[in-house]
Structure formats: structure tokens, C-alpha cells
């Protein structure tokens, strides 16, 4: 049973049938899925959700699919980690990390949006799925396409991490590297989507794809005991996830599943690719594109399609945002790993680094509940931190050598010498 009624232009309000469309023919504005919320409110309860399997489809009434979802049976419902040690260092009691480093099967939040997009691609009868990607989306599309039995075509800019190329090709997808940056790839793919009639998850299926990002927010609310956090910090690249998390929180209120509090949503960008933060800090609506230059490749988008909606969601919530330099990003990755045992990719380091700034600026108070969004896994981006970590010691397999080293490390005497 479907609860979608139409697609609707976010700018001019014109409605369209449920089809693989993403741009309003009148004003070029983005199309958004429209639901019958009264019907959802009547159909959906906390108990019904809680009785379902631990995957993102437990919120299926609030997702744009018609039948039984066939893609992503193990995706979503990642841990919400209560960070006691990191919280203690920062003076926060209720600090949480939403940990999509362990999303199934490709270790990033993209498993959410792709599960929804490919389910929809099958409903529409597509046999080829495709995407423009810097990596995480590529691996997610390749893996989910493989399991769904669809052909995958993946387009990436040159210079993405080797692991992401291998991690897409391994699933049998055709990978094509474009000489240029992500924005060049995106432009080419818009033209290919037009000409070849494929399902580009982040282009012609974009209205459905982006809805999958709401599940990140739904899960946080459920995992906090059907409550919203006071603050959530979300990374911003193309601008998909932040407005969708805000939408998720609002929808949960609208259909009566949560009450308050009034959450504040904050945007995090890498300083080398921060067009949205520049506009936010200047107090303007117009986002001036930049040429990205940062180690945080997964969020290096200089011309964010949904940047305007990020600004709007942040401002409406009373939130803020900031950017983090590459060294700050690396330090934050190390801090999270050292205190909580979670290894985030640079996008996650960016988000934590910005959360630290918001705490220092007094925008986040010690007794408030804070969620830091970690959307991708550090094992995919070893290049970003490998030069910033200590080299291991190399010794011979002799106890005396180790004794000498241990003393040199200043760790003191062995605790329990054999008597």
C-alpha cells in the first residue's frame, strides 16, 4: 500500500505524477515526494514500527515505495552510540554518535538512499542503474545493483581514493573515471541520463533517493526513546541529508510519533569546500560555487544542488554551522577513534570538528542532547590520515628488545613480573 500522492515542485508547487522525474518543467526547481499524512497518521504507530525487522524499511509508510521493498533488507538501523568518554572530554553528558560507518553492505549512509532509489528503479521497470559519485555512493549503487540483479554504470572524477574504485568494480559494475571534478561528472551524467534513459539514482530518481536519507533521522528519534535531540550536527556536501533529517524530525511530529524538543540542526563543511557555510555566515541566500580543495573528498562539492535548502533548514531550526580545516578534520578523526573506537572518514571528522567549535562557541550547552552524524567509514579513506599517525616500531622477536623498547616508551615496569 502506497502513501505517495504525487511529486510536487518545491519552488512553484506544480504537481506531477509519480514517475522518474526530478526537475520542474516550469521553473527547474527540484521535485519532492508528496504523501497523504492523514492516512499515515492513522496507519503508523510506535508499536508497529518496533515490531518490524531492524532495517530502514521499518518506516516504510514514510518512504516513497509501493510494494514490498526488495532492496536493502539489512541496510539502516545502525547504532546510536552514547559517547561517554568523548562526552567527558568535551564536558557533555548526552553526546551521541549516529554511526553509519557500519551501515550494510557498503559502510556509509548511502546504503539508505540507494536502497530506496533502487527499489523504486525496479518498480519503474529500469534494468540499468547509475550514478555520479565520488565514492561512497558508487560503492552503494554497485553493491545494491548486484544484489538486485541490475546492470550498474558508475561515473567518478579522477583522484578518488583507490579503495572506492576497487570497491565499486568488485561488484561487477562498469566504472568510468571522468577527467575533471565531481561537478564535471555530475553535469555529464545529467546529459547521459537524458540521452540513455537509465535510472541515475541521484539524478532522475533523486526525489525518491533523497527520501531514503530521512531514515537516518527516524532512527535517531526512535533510538533516543522516541525523542528528538536538542542538537544534531550534519555534514553538507550536495545538501541531501541535512534537510531530509530536518524533514524526518518534522514528519515524526506531524504523524504523532514524537513530541519535542525543538531541535537545532547545524551544518558542517570542510573549509576547502564550504560554499553553504560562507552563505550562512554572510546571511545571504545566494550560494556562490567554489572549486573544492580538501582531504574530505566525499563532501567536496563546490556547487551544491540543495545548498539553499540546507540554509533554510538550518535557519528555520535556529541552528548554525561552521567549517573545519584539513588538520582539524584529521585531529577529530583521531579523537573519535581514540575515545570511542569509531573510525570515521574525513566527512565524519569534519562533522565532529564542527561540533567541537559549536560547543566552544557556547551554542551547544553541557546539559543538552547532541547527535553527531558520522556518515562514512575511515577504512575507505586511509590515505587521508596515514601521514598523520605514528609509525609503528619494528623490533626483532626477542624479549630483551621489547623490554628496552617498553622502557623507552616510558610506560614503567611490567605490571606482573613472573615470580
Amino acid at each position, binding site marked *: 500500500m502506497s502513501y505517495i500522492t504525487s511529486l510536487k515542485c518545491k519552488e512553484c508547487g506544480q504537481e506531477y505524477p509519480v514517475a522518474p522525474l526530478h526537475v520542474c518543467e516550469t521553473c527547474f526547481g527540484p521535485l519532492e515526494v508528496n504523501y497523504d499524512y492523514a492516512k499515515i497518521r492513522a496507519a503508523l504507530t510506535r508499536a508497529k514500527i518496533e515490531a518490524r525487522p531492524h532495517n530502514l524499511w521499518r518506516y516504510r509508510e514514510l518512504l516513497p515505495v509501493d510494494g514490498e521493498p526488495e532492496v536493502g533488507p539489512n541496510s539502516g538501523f545502525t547504532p546510536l552510540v552514547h559517547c561517554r568518554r568523548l562526552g567527558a572530554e568535551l564536558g557533555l553528558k548526552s553526546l551521541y554518535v549516529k554511526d553509519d560507518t557500519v551501515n550494510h553492505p557498503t559502510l556509509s549512509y548511502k546504503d539508505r538512499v540507494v536502497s530506496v532509489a533502487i527499489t523504486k528503479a525496479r518498480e519503474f521497470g529500469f534494468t540499468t542503474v547509475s550514478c555520479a559519485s565520488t565514492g561512497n555512493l558508487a560503492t552503494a549503487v554497485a553493491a545494491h545493483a548486484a544484489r538486485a540483479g541490475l546492470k550498474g554504470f558508475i561515473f567518478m572524477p579522477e583522484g578518488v581514493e583507490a579503495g572506492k574504485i576497487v570497491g565499486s568494480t568488485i561488484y561487477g559494475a562498469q566504472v568510468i573515471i571522468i577527467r575533471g571534478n565531481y561537478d564535471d561528472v555530475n*553535469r555529464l551524467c545529467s546529459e547521459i541520463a537524458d540521452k540513455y534513459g537509465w535510472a541515475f539514482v541521484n539524478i532522475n530518481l*533523486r526525489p525518491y533517493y533523497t527520501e531514503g536519507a530521512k531514515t537516518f533521522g527516524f532512527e535517531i528519534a526512535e533510538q533516543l526513546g522516541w525523542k528528538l535531540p536538542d542538537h544534531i550536527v550534519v555534514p553538507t556536501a550536495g545538501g541531501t541529508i541535512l534537510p531530509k533529517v530536518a524533514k524526518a524530525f518534522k514528519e515524526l511530529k506531524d504523524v504523532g510519533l514524537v513530541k519535542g524538543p525543538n531541535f537545532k540542526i547545524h551544518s558542517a563543511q570542510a573549509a576547502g569546500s564550504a560554499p553553504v557555510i560562507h552563505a550562512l555566515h554572510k546571511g545571504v541566500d545566494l550560494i556562490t560555487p567554489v572549486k573544492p580543495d580538501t582531504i574530505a573528498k566525499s563532501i567536496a562539492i563546490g556547487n551544491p544542488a540543495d545548498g*539553499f535548502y540546507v540554509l533554510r533548514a538550518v535557519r528555520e531550526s535556529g541552528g548554525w554551522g561552521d567549517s573545519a580545516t584539513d588538520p582539524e578534520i584529521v585531529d577529530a578523526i583521531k579523537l573519535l577513534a581514540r575515545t570511542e573506537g569509531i573510525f570515521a572518514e574525513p566527512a565524519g571528522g569534519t562533522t565532529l570538528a564542527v561540533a567541537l567549535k559549536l560547543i566552544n562557541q557556547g551554542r551547544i550547552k553541557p546539559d543538552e542532547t547532541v547527535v553527531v552524524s558520522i556518515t562514512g567509514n575511515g577504512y575507505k579513506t586511509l590515505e587521508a590520515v596515514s601521514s598523520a599517525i605514528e609509525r609503528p616500531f619494528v623490533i626483532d622477536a626477542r624479549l630483551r628488545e621489547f623490554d628496552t623498547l617498553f622502557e623507552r616508551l616510558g610506560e614503567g615496569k611490567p605490571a606482573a613480573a613472573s615470580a
Partner: protein
Amino acid sequence: MAVRVRVPTPLRRFTGGEGEVPADGASIRQVIEDLEKRHAGIRERLLDDKGEIRRFVNIYLNGDDVRFLESLNSKVKDGDDISIVPAIAGGR
């Protein structure tokens, strides 16, 4: 200056279904004016009521976003490659 302009699906009802059309002009602004003469109604889809490029329209001149160049005043040479692409795409 004679150029070719690639037109996305939502605008092809103005171009009789063509995905690529010829146009003339020494700047992006002049090319758009010429497109309007040949395909009435297309200018309003590209420019807002202040005459600026609409928020959700990207125009590329030889692969570069014209917002990085001189926007509507960017100079156009014979044989240049112009693409009109909806801004809404992406999410890596």
C-alpha cells in the same frame, strides 16, 4: 559567433524535441536572446524576473560553469560548446 547549445529534456518542448540547437551571439546573454528569437518562451525558463540566471539553472561554457566566468557577460567564440543543465542532481 555560431555556437551549439545542448538543451535538457524539460526545455525540449521549446526546441521541437531537439537536444542540441544552433545559436548566435558574442556573449551568453546574446546567445540566450538569440535562442528566444528561435524558440519563443525559452528565455523565461532560464532567467528570472531580474534577468539573472535562475537558481536551479546551470549554464556551462566549454565545460565551465559561467558563474565562475563572467556569468551572462561571458564571452562566446565561434564553435564554443554551451550546455544548459538543471542544477538539481548530485549527492556523492
